[in-house]
């Protein structure tokens, strides 16, 4: 076995082969599922904690504040302390709430974001499952989250929650279209829905550079729609602190609230990952055709670092969005989607198809 930080294919293959040598195929599958589950769970918790910390630091940086700086050096253990606090808090049960739905809702939200991680390629050969319909799977799975939000709003027996859930339903269902269509634009360009193939296709230049104008339009639309889909500011109408106190999760406390909170940050991570993978080449280093020396230097940076770096930049942009803009109103939000983004997007798909047909895209 050789462990190569630039290519995990042989490593994962070695695990698979050594397991196969030791037990029957059924148990191999079970063991592999367990390994992947634990790995993703650990990754999920780590990223969640880090993102909450990053958000607080970025927000403090935007607002002339210091941010968390008491627990540990530079306050890095602040989110862990917060998590412990949330774990120990009492779970408040609401009178006349629909108990079953009330309890299920946070799990649906968190499961939806959990499932989507499976398809994301973190580095060469490092993904849980490499679908041939990867993009389709991610879009389908991440849209399940809205069910949890609607249930949370409905079952809480609170008027603010219900309004928040109503808004959230309208918003997420609308913006799903834009996310889907802008991804379809890129699927036309790459000719594949398999995320690993899409990344490999960007070896000679990321799609945002090789895809001409439609790719840039698709990227901008994807960023707007993805921000809206994750319920983040300036599209955080479902929570809308100054209007609905906390929107759909007003009545949740303790660890159930933490689930919503964590799911929000994970959704942000997932949409940023997808953006990085589809538009910025995922784990693929930055290559310029013809510059051999430059390309070799870029190849020395491990793919995992490339992937994390790109995702972090996109997350940072999304955080800047949130801390700069005021919130939209619900009708303006829907106007933006149905009257502007959707027509532009449809036109963009046609434009991209035309460019690909004419063979102008490489």
């Amino acid at each position: 076995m050789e462990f190569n930080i630039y290519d995990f294919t042989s490593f994962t293959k070695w695990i698979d082969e050594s397991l196969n040598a030791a037990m029957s195929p059924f148990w191999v599958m079970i063991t592999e599922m367990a390994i992947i589950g634990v790995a993703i769970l650990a990754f999920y918790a780590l990223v969640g904690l880090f993102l909450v910390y990053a958000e607080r630091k970025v927000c403090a940086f935007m607002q002339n504040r210091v941010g968390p700086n008491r627990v540990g050096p530079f306050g890095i253990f602040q989110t862990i302390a917060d998590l412990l606090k949330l774990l120990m808090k009492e779970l408040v049960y609401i009178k006349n709430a629909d108990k079953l739905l009330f309890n299920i809702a946070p799990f649906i939200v968190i499961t939806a974001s959990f499932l989507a991680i499976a398809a994301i390629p973190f580095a060469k050969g490092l993904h849980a499952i490499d679908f041939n319909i990867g993009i389709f799977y991610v879009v389908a799975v991440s849209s399940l989250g809205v069910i949890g939000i609607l249930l949370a709003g409905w079952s809480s027996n609170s008027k603010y929650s219900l309004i928040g859930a109503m808004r959230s339903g309208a918003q997420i269902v609308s913006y799903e279209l834009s996310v889907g269509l802008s991804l379809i634009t890129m699927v036309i360009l790459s000719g594949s829905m398999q995320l690993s193939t899409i990344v490999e296709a960007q070896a000679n230049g990321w799609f945002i550079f090789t895809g001409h104008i439609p790719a840039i339009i698709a990227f901008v639309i994807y960023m707007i729609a993805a921000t809206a889909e994750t319920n983040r500011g300036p599209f955080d109408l479902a929570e809308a602190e100054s209007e609905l106190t906390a929107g759909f999760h007003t009545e949740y406390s303790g660890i159930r609230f933490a689930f919503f909170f964590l799911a929000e940050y994970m959704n942000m991570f997932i949409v940023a990952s997808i953006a990085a993978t589809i538009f910025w080449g995922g784990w693929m280093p930055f290559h310029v055709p013809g510059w051999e020396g430059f390309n070799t230097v870029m190849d020395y940076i491990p793919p995992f670092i490339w992937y994390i770096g790109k995702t972090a930049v996109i997350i940072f942009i999304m955080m800047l969005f949130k801390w700069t803009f005021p919130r939209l109103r619900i009708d303006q939000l829907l106007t933006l989607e149905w009257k502007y983004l959707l027509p532009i997007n449809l036109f963009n798909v046609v434009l991209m198809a035309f460019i690909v047909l004419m063979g102008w895209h490489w």
Partner: protein
Amino acid sequence: MAEIIQDIQEQEYLINMGPQHPSTHGVLRLVLSLRGETVLSVQPHCGYIHRGIEKMCERLTYQQIIHLTDRLDYLSAHINNHAVCMLVENALGVELPERVKYIRTIMDELARIASHQLWWCSFGMDLGALTAFFYGLRDREPILDIFEESTGGRLIQSYYTPGGLMKDIHPGFQKRVKDFIKMFRKKINEYDQLLSGNVIMTQRTQGIGILTEEEAISFGVTGPSGRGSGFECDIRKHHPYSLYNKVEFKEILRTEGDSFARYSVRMDEMRESLNIIEQLIDNIPAGDFSVKMKPVIKLPEGEYYQRVEAARGEFGVFISSKGEKYPYRVKLRSPNFSNLSALHSIAHGQKIADLVAIGASLDYVIPDIDR
């Protein structure tokens, strides 16, 4: 089934906004009846922070009343006190030294700027731009430091007293104020860049929550909210007191009457206040900071009224005296109470989010409403 749907569509969705709610700026309770997101009616319920200040004043001497008028609109504490002090001084025919008038005018305008800054903070926050909140608070800090240095208080100062001031200004007062003016002239442009020109912000406020001039007059909506509707109601201009007839300043007027008009009136008023302070700060004459008054002030029998332009509109004090050391009856005309009364006619038919923006643009301070 169709009947049920129709029944649901015709039902009103009642919701209690407040008394504890982030965007009611205190313990105001608004009973909203909604259809979907549209607000059908707004019914303000006040009284959650009623302290009976007017009644308490009947058992307090005129010097002591100052400490209660501080606590009405705590953001324009100086200005409220100015009204009470002027009422007593005018009733007794006290001639004030020029120095007192200068300092009072400067302090009033500083309080107005600080108040408008806090309004800008909360306006941004109500629209969802939390960063604006911190920018405003950051720039308000120097004013509070100036207040603290000279008066000892940051929020409520009780600095004025019938016959002058409690104590003289700090020696570093003029320099600090000039530094602040220089700094804030730059910062206020930053405010415009951050919020005023933002597309989302203009969409959320322009043409939303229109208050016509007639309505403004009939509800008695004064101050920046009234002037946003074209109602000329600046007491400083039309019934000048203190030094306002000596300084050059414009009465800021907008005719649109929407949330954005009220917003831009306040933004320009901050600039105008800076101009007023700039004209006065270098010319503060030497002299006494107060007139020797009797320890127990007794107002001659009669009825007195004095009004000033507070940060949120016309603030009036009515005192009926029977010649004793306590007033016989006190009535305070607080601007916020009248401004709030117009809320239903501004906000009905708008969305919930707009109601929040309208509330922010009316800039109510709850202790002033409930008194």
